[in-house]
């Protein structure tokens, strides 16, 4: 019985977080007249898929009227290389910072740490300048991909460094005596032990990059924008009536990939954050 208040509190908290999701879901399946005539919490009378279809392939966004699907694809084209490359570089950085220490390694690490507390806005101008110089301004690939890789490196390096410090250095020493070099040790000894931290880093990067709006809006031209920016345009596009159901469906479509990632790999995320590195 003493547990009752706890359950009550947890239920309330869950409701608080789930309510907006519930409203989005039911609204996305309603027709416009229904939205105007029914209470916001009411269930749809019949599940109408029009809003989903329209959001996916018919809605007007900027100059195009193909719905959000081209932008959804843009986001994938952005997120896949950016996550892979930033995770890979972070892993190598972490490996060097822990097991191939060099003079000044600590200073570099602390500078990288600083990178994790920079707000997005700080890098906008310098990055725009760099992109201009490289003639990749406004592009999704490689422009925006590069922005996300660079911004993410501080985080991915930090994750891998903190994981690799707990891997005994004797393993590296043993492998060196056994005749393995820098990359072979990384590949054969370190990487097989790294699944939890790869998962954590990849999920983190996927979520950060997929959900990012600011870099997308600043650094890409209209047809190259990621889905987050497209949703904003969709909502902003002024037509005679505001299609709430279409807005909701589009937002839900954009949220699906992160949800799927969490469902598939979430257990690794929890395990990677709580468990130590290697046992024996």
């Amino acid at each position, binding site marked *: 019985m003493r547990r009752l208040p706890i359950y009550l509190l947890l239920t309330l908290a869950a409701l608080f977080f789930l309510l907006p999701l519930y409203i989005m879901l039911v609204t996305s399946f309603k027709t416009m007249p229904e939205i105007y005539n029914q209470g916001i919490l009411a269930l749809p009378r019949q599940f109408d898929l029009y809003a989903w279809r329209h959001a996916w392939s018919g809605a007007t966004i900027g100059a195009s009227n193909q719905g959000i699907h081209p932008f959804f694809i843009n986001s994938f084209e952005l997120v896949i290389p950016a996550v892979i490359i930033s995770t890979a570089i972070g892993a190598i950085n972490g490996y060097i910072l822990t097991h191939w220490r060099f003079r000044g390694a600590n200073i570099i690490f602390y500078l990288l740490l600083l990178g994790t507390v920079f707000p997005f806005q700080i890098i906008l101008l310098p990055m725009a300048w760099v992109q201009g110089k490289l003639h990749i301004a406004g592009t999704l690939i490689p422009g925006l991909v590069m922005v996300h890789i660079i911004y993410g490196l501080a985080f991915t390096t930090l994750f891998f460094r903190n994981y690799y410090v707990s891997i*005994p250095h*004797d*393993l590296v*020493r*043993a*492998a*060196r*005596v*056994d*005749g*393995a*070099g820098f990359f*072979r040790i990384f590949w*054969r*000894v370190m990487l*097989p*032990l790294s699944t939890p931290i790869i998962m954590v880093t990849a999920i983190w990067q996927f979520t950060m990059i997929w959900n990012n709006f600011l870099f997308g809006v600043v650094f890409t031209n209209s047809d190259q924008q990621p889905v987050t920016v497209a949703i904003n345009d969709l909502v902003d596009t002024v037509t005679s009536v505001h299609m709430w159901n279409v807005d909701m469906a589009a937002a839900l479509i954009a949220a699906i990939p992160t949800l799927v990632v969490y469902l598939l790999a979430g257990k690794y995320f929890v395990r990677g954050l709580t468990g130590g590195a*290697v*046992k*024996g």
Partner: protein
Amino acid sequence: MGKLILQDIHKSYGKDEVLHGINIETGENQFLVLIGPSGCGKTTLLNIIAGLEQESGGDILLNDRRLNGLSPKDRDIAMVFQSYALYPSMTVRNNILFALENRKVPKAEREQILMDVARMLQIEHLLDRRPRQLSGGQQQRVAIGRAIARRPTLFLFDEPLSNLDAKLRVEMRSEIKRLHQQLQTSMVYVTHDQIEAMTMGDLIAVMNEGVIQQLGSPESIYNDPANRFVAGFMGSPSMNFLPVVPREEASGLCLRVAGAEGDGNLLPVPPKMQGALRGQLGRRITLGIRPEQITDPGSAREGEALHSIELDVELLEPTGPDTLVFTRLDGHSLVARVHPSTHLQIGSRCTLSFHMERAVFFDPENGSRLA
């Protein structure tokens, strides 16, 4: 094969020098033991030999080949770590094969070596397990197997047995010794266990604070210590140290125990040491004598003169093969070692005989050997 020469090895970390000029030369196929207290630089020296750390000065020669500057993989050396350092993600088989693959040994030969090593160390049934599925002793065997598979010119061991329980330690100790005989290679073995050092070493280097205190056979280290540090470090229980003052008596040169009331107990100086100690007349010096050299009367060898004194028994520690007697000579505590059949009682008096022939003398200031 395998003759190791270290010439004037120095190592500094920033401003701290941790090795101050190490010189060691081993014979062919010798078993060299490095022993010393924690932090004296044993691991650092081993890492320098292996090429895992860069020396700040000096030369390393293996079979007359200069190793300086070579990377670990080009030194023809294998190493066994205190933590075993088995690769957690690989099976025992792959742990052993890893070094062979790195060296591009042909596959058929690799399999042959694997089977030989597994048989030699009796780990055939463990080949498909991962390290975490092994006991400490089995892990240590695999670690040794991984080193053997390479057939290196030199083996380095960094306290390989210190994580094992006492019984296993004794077993592995003789197993490593047996391997040394079987493989006919040089080994350098770091330990801070003096029993390991005494039982395994052909040559022992006693280190302290980055300096070799003495390099010699187990017998010479034990019986003929170069200084007070070596004398006190080797042997358990430790050697007894007494402050004494040499003086001339009618009967010849004698030692008065410092701090004794009146004359106290005078200890005679055996003839062979008299020359060296005459120079110290009236000066306070340190007498070193091992517990087993203060023992039952009647234990004298032929022609040996014992000096017997009656002392109070303060505490008795039967260890099994012999009994330790804690007593006091002119106010200074002493440990003696007697035969377990000797009948003694705490609080009673007993007669103990001093084998003065075996005693050693040190300068109390710098610990150097006087006689």
